[in-house]
């Protein structure tokens, strides 16, 4: 087993005292003026901390809840524990210490389509924000969607990048509900569980979102009101669709005078990133598919070679051919596992980021909307001032007073508009900085994990072929 090692360079002084203070203001600054090279210092298994939670996290992943659903055998589950280590060390550096994971519990029976999958969300934390250190709740998929929609409505328009929730999938869910306990529905459940877990972790890593009462309620309270507005065909759903269309039209018509080069550059950057990530995602998906095909073809070749070995009447050659069949079969299993790793590490990560970038672009759009509002109020003010001047000229005292009042109101509105615009611009700058930092960490740790799997696969392949070689040489 190849052991990854790394070592800490920087001074990262991680003390447990920091973990309990709730100092929001000054600490936040440290998030953004890090030396980029220091990022390397954290992503290791050997960082020595004396946090009390450390030991628990180093144990291999969460204790699985007893569930009648058999988890897919080829999923690399121990890795999830590894991911937790990573996130923990990052968070402790930032003072926030909250880790959670999801387990699939069971399919809650209901009549036909009313059955649903329940997930157990377990949180471990040392923050004083929470009542307990460790607690679990049961949630269903629509609860996650409900959480996201609440957060989006509260934070998107002021410029916070709210992580997007996983997408609905009617087909996948239907198969599970119907009770098909086969490979593909197991894979679907695992895929969804993993996506929900990543979604929640991203949400709680956000220092502002973590403190949101909706998030706290989601994590802590045992009962949660059903989020009905998340259903696709509900009136809320339709309203969402209409709004989305309206936004798209507006975006085309708003012509903002961008005075800030930073924003222009960043917007371009995210546009490019979007295109490239989508392309990469498509290529990785193709890779996963082809590797799965390779695995299948190897398996069928192995069978064929075994039959050939049986036919062969020369004993040593026959044995060698059977051995060849065995080697190919083992390697096909390896390739299958590798395909899964390709998928869970690379493909899902890329998919998440494609959606995240959409959220980032949405935030930029919100800024434009805010700017538009401000401009609109300014124009209104201008008009009212002109009207007031006219009234003064025409000497209509009663209407004049009304006009003056309106102007006062509009002046305040304009000031508020300007403040809003400045605030959202500031927030976006911070958010983008944080987002880019997170992105770098995320990619780096995932890439390392992925390379580890590639390496393991190769080491195994060497072993198998080296075991076969003497058999081939033994043919006389």
């Amino acid at each position, binding site marked *: 087993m190849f052991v990854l090692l790394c070592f800490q360079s920087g001074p990262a002084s991680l003390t447990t005292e920091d973990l309990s203070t709730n100092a929001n203001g000054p600490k936040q600054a440290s998030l953004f003026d890090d030396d980029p*090279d220091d990022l390397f210092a954290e992503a290791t298994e050997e960082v020595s901390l004396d946090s009390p939670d450390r030991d628990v996290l180093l144990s291999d992943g969460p204790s699985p809840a007893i569930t009648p659903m058999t988890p897919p055998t080829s999923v690399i589950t121990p890795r999830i524990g590894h991911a937790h280590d990573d996130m923990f060390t990052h968070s402790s550096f930032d003072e926030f210490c909250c880790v959670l994971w999801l387990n699939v519990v069971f399919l809650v029976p209901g009549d036909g389509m009313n059955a649903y999958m329940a997930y157990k969300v377990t949180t471990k934390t040392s923050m004083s924000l929470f009542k307990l250190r460790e607690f679990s709740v049961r949630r269903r998929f629509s609860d996650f969607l409900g959480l996201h929609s609440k957060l989006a409505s509260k934070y998107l328009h002021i410029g916070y990048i709210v992580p997007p929730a996983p997408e609905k999938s009617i087909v996948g869910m239907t198969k599970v509900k119907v009770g098909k306990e086969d490979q593909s529905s197991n894979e679907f459940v695992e895929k969804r569980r993993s996506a929900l877990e990543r979604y929640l972790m991203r949400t709680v890593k956000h220092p502002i979102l973590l403190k949101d009462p909706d998030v706290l309620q989601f994590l802590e309270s045992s009962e949660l009101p059903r989020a009905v507005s998340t259903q696709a065909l509900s009136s809320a759903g339709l309203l969402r669709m209409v709004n989305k269309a309206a936004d798209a039209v507006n975006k085309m018509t708003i012509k903002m005078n961008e005075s800030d080069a930073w924003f222009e550059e960043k917007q371009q950057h995210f546009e490019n990133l979007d295109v*490239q990530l989508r392309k990469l995602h498509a290529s990785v998906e193709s890779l996963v598919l082809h590797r799965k095909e390779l695995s299948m073809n190897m398996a069928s070749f192995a069978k064929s070679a075994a039959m050939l070995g049986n*036919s062969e009447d020369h004993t040593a050659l026959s044995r060698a051919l059977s051995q060849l069949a065995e080697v190919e079969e083992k390697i096909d299993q390896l390739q299958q596992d590798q395909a899964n790793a390709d998928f869970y590490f690379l493909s899902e990560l890329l998919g998440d980021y494609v959606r995240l970038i959409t959220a980032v672009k949405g935030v930029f759009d919100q800024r434009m909307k805010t700017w538009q509002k401000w401009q609109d109020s300014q124009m209104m003010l201008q008009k009212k001032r002109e009207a007031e001047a006219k009234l003064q000229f025409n000497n209509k005292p009663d209407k004049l007073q009304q006009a003056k009042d309106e102007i006062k109101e509009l002046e305040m509105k304009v000031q508020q508009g300007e403040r809003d615009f400045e605030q959202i611009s500031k927030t976006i700058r911070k958010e983008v900085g944080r987002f880019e930092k997170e992105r770098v960490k995320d990619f780096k740790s995932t890439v390392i994990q992925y390379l580890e799997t590639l390496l393991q696969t190769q080491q195994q392949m060497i072993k198998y072929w080296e075991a076969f070689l003497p058999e081939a040489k033994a043919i006389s």
Partner: protein
Amino acid sequence: MLKATLKTKRLHSTQSVSDTPHLPQLSREVKFTVHTKTTLSSFQKPEFSVPRQHEDFIWLHDTLVETEDYAGLIIPPAPPKPDFEGPREKMHKLGEGEATMTKEEYTKMKQELEAEYLAVFKKTVQVHEIFLQRLSSHPILNKDRNFQIFLEYDQDLSVRRKNAKEMFGGFFKNMVKSADEVLISGVKEVDDFFEQEKTFLLDYYSKIKDSTAKAEKMTRSHKNIADDYIRISATLNSLSSDDSTANKKHLEKMSDLFEKLRKVEGRVASDQELKLTELLRYYMRDIQAAKDLLYRRARALADYENSNKALDKARLKSKDIPQAEEHQQQCLQKFDKLSESGKKELTSFKGRRVVAFRKNLIEMAELEIKHAKVRSSIQLYYICFIMCTNELQYAWGICKILCEQI
């Protein structure tokens, strides 16, 4: 001593501006040069070369098959037509997708295309050469007059080919059609050896045909993965050139990694093809040739039995007895001759097969190990790079890892 080797020239289009290889449309566009070295006095010179086309090999094979005297021998299978369909399809796709690719992606795909083209070339040369080598090492076949002509005649063989076609006109080919049926049904086998061989060869043939097809599919999957790596590498490259954060170096390195991996993957695919798929394919054809021998013998047996019946009839009618007797004697002689040489040929065939499998399986295993090791060390290097910030740490890291591995 008679040694024949094969050379051929890669074709390049003289007209087009780009330097894409000219893919032959017709097999006659592939020109081979057959170079012979010999000490036999039956040849005019000790060393000489002639130009040949694929069709000439086919002509030679067919004339050997149709020569009665060689009925008791396994005639080496004819080399298959040079097939550039794979690279041609790829070139077509490349041309279509050019607009959507970046410059480097296009260059890399072109490299892959050239590599594949080269691989097909190597394969076709190898298989034609093996055909000649089998002939030149066979004690009876290497004395064949037509073989000599093939090696020596420095003019174009196409005139001769046409005459030959008219003479034989696919006579034997029609017989070959129902070979398996003749073998399986009807003829009662008198010799245990041949009975066993028949069962074995029929069964083995179907199994090896299946394995060949499955091996081809595996090779294709490897090639698909190599193509994916190209795309991933190119996209990572674009990402890195756009990136100004700490990610930039990672992305560059990842792009490099995938580029190196795809080269290995491509090598694996072509090695597997040469050592495994080609091996299976060749022996599939060789077994077919062995089956042909068996059925020629079965035919001879049938003829002999018929001649016996004819003799009995003649004796009954008391008419044409001497002719019937002579005919029966001839059939018996032919059958015995075929059985004797057939036995020798089939035994040496088995030995040949075992030796070839052994050699190729060993080579394949060694190559797979080599490639896996190469992949491992590439990945190790990149992991270290990504995890460490400066050269010192990097070197330290490598040392520690290597120690762990020991």
